[in-house]
């Protein structure tokens, strides 16, 4: 009942999305305002429709309708209700519905805005969102239907949407259930965050295409979508961080990022999106790089679709194993067609997009921004190369050759270091013209301070050359950025006659994007501390201990006290939990409880580390194995991950920085005037 209903609603939604595309294009070409209005309303209608479709799916999931194949695959009787709801995006078919649901919601929100003087964009924004929506709904309706059910046909079970001849419905007693590894809070929020990021980037793309089609190629489209891009970036970043945290907490290899193809697939649109956020500033301030911004937003869109496909297709072997399916070629056709069309539009509008001025000085802010873009694109090329290299090598040599994490680390390492350096230099350079002298004058203090920090670290902490270089760059960025806050606040304090902190708060409040950006720079530097720590200084040890025996690692003593096993019949889980006492230099610090949870239904272990986290390092203990209680031995693997906590602290600060930059201003009109004035003054202050 609900299955047919849900399917019918999605089919209707698909048709409505198609209608909105045709009506919008027709209305725009024939200059018929009523057709465009009709298209807008159609787009607006898709959201309630798809919500009803999704609600039917959730109803089936929550009520254990295992005759529906999707429900059978992702839920089981023993799962709590909230997990059954979130199982919506636990499999391919459901996550495509989820994607469409988000897109429909965002597109509706956009069509609701006051269009006034941007009304010529409206039909084309509807066209782009409508085509994307129709593509995903088409996949759901025709290829990856979450509502197909099991039918008993002549003794065999088959899955079909509608009843075959002489078939009776088949309901399995219990579903397969979500993999225990995916039942972690991080993994429940991670996919929707990534998807929110992916889908939000469709909106800036839609406006870019609208600008190209209508020929209104000034920076209006960028100003209209600035906040969308920032929110998209926020969600995408948050999704990546959650994925890392999940790996650290659940996968039990003491790391957080494995250069897995699926991770890279989510990372690539982040890279182009980050480049885009930087380079639009040059277009706004200097009227340059218009072609480039278009290309970046188009690339981001293509990578978003590609990422959606990769994260759900299992084309490449990875720990994120997901279903293989027949929809791969359709994705590639869709990406190819939209990419080619977009590029054709750019070529058509090429003359209108030429810059208003020329880039003159190699050290000007715009040139350094361009360099930043080049570095992000280089990292993108490295990632893309790594992902497609097996296919390329097979094509040319007949042998499948793959590259592993070592490839990504050694190829991107210098690029990340260069980005850090640039993050320190660029905010100090002036728009238009900068020389070594002017730049040197504003840089030397921070460089000197960073050098002193590095020398102190050399004396007391490490003599690893890469670490020292990394810490130099990190402290350089931190000093430069704090200096910027200091200088801005001091200047305002003098002219406005305010206290230092009032001046700082007002300065930041009035220049949200600028200072939000600086907060993000600080957070990146803080994250870099953690990454350097775990990458360069991680130590590990292992051993089998009898009760009372101990292991020593990096000043810690880990003493095995006891171990207990018990079962939870209701959940079908058997827990084995060890108690170990932690000492450092003879001082008792407390106990840790590494565990292994055995999920009988899935026949799978889940190794949960016991982790003691401090700003200095993490003591990360895994219970690997244990002997029967009589002999009382247990095996542990222990990592000490120096400084890694800074990465999580940096991530939180990073998210805070984006929210700060993207937060809506209270008085938009006055605010933007104010912004222009203060930006002018800060430009001159940076130039002097």
């Amino acid at each position: 009942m609900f299955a047919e209903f849900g399917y019918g609603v999605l089919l209707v939604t698909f048709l409505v999305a198609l209608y909105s595309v045709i009506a919008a294009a027709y209305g725009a070409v024939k200059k018929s305002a009523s057709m465009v209005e009709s298209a807008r309303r159609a787009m607006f209608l898709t959201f309630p429709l798809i919500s009803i479709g999704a609600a039917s799916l959730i109803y089936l999931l929550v009520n254990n309708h295992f005759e529906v194949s999707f429900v059978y695959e992702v839920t089981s009787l023993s799962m709590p209700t909230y997990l059954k709801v979130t199982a919506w995006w636990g499999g391919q078919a459901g996550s495509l519905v989820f994607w469409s649901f988000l897109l429909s919601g965002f597109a509706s929100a956009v069509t609701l805005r006051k269009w006034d003087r941007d009304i010529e964009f409206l039909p084309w924004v509807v066209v782009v969102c409508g085509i994307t929506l129709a593509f995903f709904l088409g996949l759901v309706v025709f290829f990856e239907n979450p509502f197909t059910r099991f039918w008993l046909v002549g003794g065999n079970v088959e899955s079909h949407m509608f009843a075959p001849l002489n078939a009776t419905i088949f309901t399995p007693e219990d579903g397969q259930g979500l993999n225990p590894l995916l039942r972690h809070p991080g993994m429940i929020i991670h996919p929707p965050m990534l998807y929110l990021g992916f889908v939000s980037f469709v909106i800036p793309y839609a406006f870019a295409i609208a600008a190209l089609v209508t020929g209104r190629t000034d920076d209006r489209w960028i100003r209209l979508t600035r906040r969308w891009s920032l929110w998209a970036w926020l969600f995408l970043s948050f999704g990546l961080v959650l994925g890392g945290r999940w790996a650290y907490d659940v996968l039990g290899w003491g790391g957080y990022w494995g250069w897995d193809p699926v991770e890279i697939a989510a990372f690539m649109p982040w890279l182009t999106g980050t480049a885009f956020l930087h380079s639009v500033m040059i277009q706004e301030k200097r009227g340059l790089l218009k072609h480039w911004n278009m290309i970046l937003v188009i690339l981001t869109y293509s990578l978003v679709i590609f990422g959606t496909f990769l994260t759900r297709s299992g084309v490449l072997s990875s720990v994120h194993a997901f279903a293989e399916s027949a929809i791969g070629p359709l994705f590639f056709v869709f990406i190819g067609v939209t990419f080619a069309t977009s590029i054709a539009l750019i070529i058509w509008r090429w003359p209108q997009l030429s810059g208003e001025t020329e880039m003159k000085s190699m050290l000007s802010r715009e040139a350094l921004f361009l360099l930043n873009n080049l570095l992000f694109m280089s990292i993108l090329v490295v990632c893309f190369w790594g992902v497609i290299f097996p296919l390329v090598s097979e094509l040319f040599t007949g042998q499948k050759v793959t590259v592993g994490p070592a490839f990504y680390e050694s190829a991107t390492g210098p690029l990340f270091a260069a980005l850090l350096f640039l993050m320190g230099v660029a905010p100090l350079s002036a728009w238009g013209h900068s020389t070594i002298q002017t730049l040197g004058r504003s840089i030397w203090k921070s460089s000197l301070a960073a050098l002193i920090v590095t020398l102190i670290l050399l004396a007391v902490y490490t003599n690893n050359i890469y670490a020292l270089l990394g810490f130099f760059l990190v402290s350089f960025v931190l000093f430069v950025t704090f200096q910027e806050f200091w200088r801005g606040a001091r200047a305002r304090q003098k002219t406005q006659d305010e206290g230092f902190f009032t001046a700082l708060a007002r300065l930041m409040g009035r220049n949200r994007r600028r200072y939000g950006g600086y907060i993000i720079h600080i957070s990146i530097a803080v994250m870099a501390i953690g990454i350097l720590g775990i990458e360069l200084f991680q130590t590990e040890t292992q051993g089998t201990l009898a009760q009372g025996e101990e292991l020593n690692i990096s000043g810690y003593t880990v003493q095995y006290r006891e171990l207990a096993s018990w079962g939870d019949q209701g959940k079908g889980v058997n827990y084995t939990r060890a108690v170990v006492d932690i000492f450092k230099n003879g001082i008792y610090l407390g106990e840790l409880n590494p565990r292994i949870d055995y999920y009988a239904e899935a026949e799978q272990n889940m190794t949960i580390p016991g982790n003691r986290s401090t700003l200095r390092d993490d003591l990360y203990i895994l219970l690997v194995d244990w002997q029967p209680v009589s002999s009382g031995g247990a095996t542990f693997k222990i990592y000490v991950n120096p400084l890694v906590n800074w990465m999580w602290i940096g991530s939180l600060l990073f998210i805070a920085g984006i929210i700060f930059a993207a937060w809506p201003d209270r008085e938009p009109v006055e605010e933007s005037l104010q912004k222009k004035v203060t930006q002018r003054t800060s430009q001159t202050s940076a130039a002097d």
Partner: protein
Amino acid sequence: MKPKFILGFGMILAAVAYLIFSATQASAERFMTVNEMQAEVPDVVGQSLRITGAVIGESIQYDPNTLTLTFEVAHAPADFKVIEEQGGLAEVLHQAVIDPTRQRVKIVYIGVKPDLLRGEAQAIMTGKLDEAGIFHADELLLKCPTRYEEALPEQASTD
């Protein structure tokens, strides 16, 4: 564009191209099935390889004192199309494990026993084959298709 910009960016691009080239050279590993690897013995002995196969459940042994994990994998096709034709990954792995005529290779891995290791899992290992025909893995990835893939209920196999 002024010539100095073109020169500057050209140099950066060259540097990036070099980075990618050298990193590829240093870390490229051939990706092979068990059959493909055995066909090229002894040429591939000592080379850095990435191989894939189906885990034989009964062969899994773990010594917690030394963290030494040993198991065997049987040849299973890795090509996406072939897997589709033969009825999906779960079926392909199942066939590989129950067929005693398939070529097998012994894997040795030192480390924590992965949660996903079990019979009929797809294993992807990075490491080197030694002269005795034992594959020493430094990295071990596992994929258990039955838990993810669109699979029909048990009763479906009573045809």
